C-alpha cells in the first residue's frame, strides 16, 4: 500500500499551528450566541409595535403563532443539528424538508380558514396590498438567514445547496413567526402570496447562496 510522504504530515502540522479553529465547546457557545442575536430583530419588532389583533380571534393568532414557531424550530433543527452523523441529513430529506416548511404553513392557513371562515371576507384584490408583507418577510428573514449561512459556512461537503435551501426556508419561517403577530389579514390568498411565497423564494435563494457559502471547499493556503 502506497503511503503519503512524511513531508505531508510535517507540512500539515506546521500549518495547523498557524491556523486556529474552535473546538466543539466554544463552537457550540458561539452558535447559540449568534442565533440568539439573529432572533433579536423580530423580537424587537414585536415589542416595539405590539401584536396587531385587528378583530382576529385570539385563538387564531395563537394557533398561527404556535404553528409558525414549531415549523421554524423544526426546520432550523433539521438543518443545523446534524443528528448522529457529522455529515447531517441525506440530500433528499433536506430538499423535502425545505419544501415541507411552506407547505405546512399553507396547510395551517387552510385549516384556519375552515375553522374561522369569518377571516376570509374583505380581501383586497389590489396586488399592492400584499407587497408590504412580502417585503417584510424578506426583511425580517435577513438576520436569521445571514446568521445561519455564516454559522454553516464551508461546512457541508455533501449537499450544500439542499442545506442552504432548508436554511433559507427556516429563516423565512422565523420571519413568519413575527408576521403572524403583525399581519391581521388571514385571507388565504394573502397568506399564500405574501407569507408563503417568500419562503419558497428564500429556499431558492438559500440554495444559490448555500452552494457557494455552505459548500466545503479547498483554499489557496492548502499547499
Amino acid at each position: 500500500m502506497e503511503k503519503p510522504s512524511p513531508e505531508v504530515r510535517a507540512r500539515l502540522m506546521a500549518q495547523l499551528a498557524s491556523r486556529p479553529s474552535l473546538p466543539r465547546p466554544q463552537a457550540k457557545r458561539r452558535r447559540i450566541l449568534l442565533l440568539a442575536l439573529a432572533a433579536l430583530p423580530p423580537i424587537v419588532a414585536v415589542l416595539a409595535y405590539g401584536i396587531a389583533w385587528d378583530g382576529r380571534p385570539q385563538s387564531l393568532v395563537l394557533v398561527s403563532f404556535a404553528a409558525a414557531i414549531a415549523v421554524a424550530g423544526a426546520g432550523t433543527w433539521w438543518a443545523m443539528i446534524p443528528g448522529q452523523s457529522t455529515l447531517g441529513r441525506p440530500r433528499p430529506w433536506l430538499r423535502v424538508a425545505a419544501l415541507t416548511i411552506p407547505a405546512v404553513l399553507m396547510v395551517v392557513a387552510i385549516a384556519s380558514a375552515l375553522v374561522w371562515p369569518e377571516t376570509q371576507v374583505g380581501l383586497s384584490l389590489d396586488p399592492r396590498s400584499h407587497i408590504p408583507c412580502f417585503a417584510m418577510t424578506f426583511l425580517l428573514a435577513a438576520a436569521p438567514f445571514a446568521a445561519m449561512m455564516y454559522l454553516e459556512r464551508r461546512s457541508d461537503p455533501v449537499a450544500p445547496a439542499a442545506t442552504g435551501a432548508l436554511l433559507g426556508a427556516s429563516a423565512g419561517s422565523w420571519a413568519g413567526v413575527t408576521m403572524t403577530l403583525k399581519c391581521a389579514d388571514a385571507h388565504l390568498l394573502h397568506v399564500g402570496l405574501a407569507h408563503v411565497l417568500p419562503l419558497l423564494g428564500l429556499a431558492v435563494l438559500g440554495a444559490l447562496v448555500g452552494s457557494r457559502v455552505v459548500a466545503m471547499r479547498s483554499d489557496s493556503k492548502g499547499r
Partner: protein
Amino acid sequence: MTVIATLPQPFALPPLAWITNAWETSCWHATSVNLMDTREARANAAMDRYAAGDASAFPELYDALAPRLFQYLLKLTRGDRARAEDLLQQTFLRMHDARGRFVSGSAVVPWAYAIARRLFVDAVRRDRKEDLSGLADDLVAATASDGPTPEADVEARRMAVELAAELERLPANQREAFLLVRDEGLSMAEAALVLGTTVAGVKLRASRAYKALRAVLALQGSGPGEET
C-alpha cells in the same frame, strides 16, 4: 484496493458467485475488516478528542486515517501522487477547521471521505477535466502480478480491462457507490452519508453497478476464454 485484490478469483468461480461471494469469502478481507475496525475505532476516538480541544490527538488521527484516505485519493486522481497528497493535506485542514462541528460519538471515516471527495470534485471542476478513469491502469497493474501463469496473466489483464472499461461507462453515481462499498469497504450507511443519499439509494446504485459488471463477466464466460 479490495476489488483489485480479489480480481483473479473470477477465474475459479462462476461470474455471479464472484460478484456476490468473493468479498465475503475472502480470508484476506476478513483480516482487513478487523484491522479496519480497529483503525476506525482509533480514528473515531482521536477525532472525538481533537474536536473536544485536545490538540495532541491530531497526529494520532492523521496516522489512523491518512493511509486509507491517500489510497482513495490516488484512485480518484489516477495515481497522481502529488495531487493526491495535496488533496490529502486539504482534507485534513478542512477537518481541522470544522472540528467544532464533529458530532461526539459519530464516525469520522465517512466524514473524511466526503470531504476528500468534495475537494477532488472541486479540483476537477477547476481544472475542467474529468478524472475517475485511472482504474483500468490500477486493475491491470494489480492483476498482472497475481496471475500464476502467463496465460492466466493475459486473461486476468483482459478481464481487468473489460471490467474497468465497464466501470468507466457506468454513470458517476453508480461508479462511486460501487467504489466506496466494494473498494473502500464502507458500509452501505457510510457510503450513503458520503454521497448524500439514502441507504436505499446506495443499494440501488451499487446493485445496478454489479448488474452491469456481471453482464460483462457473463459475456466473458460465454466467450472463447471460457472454452479453453
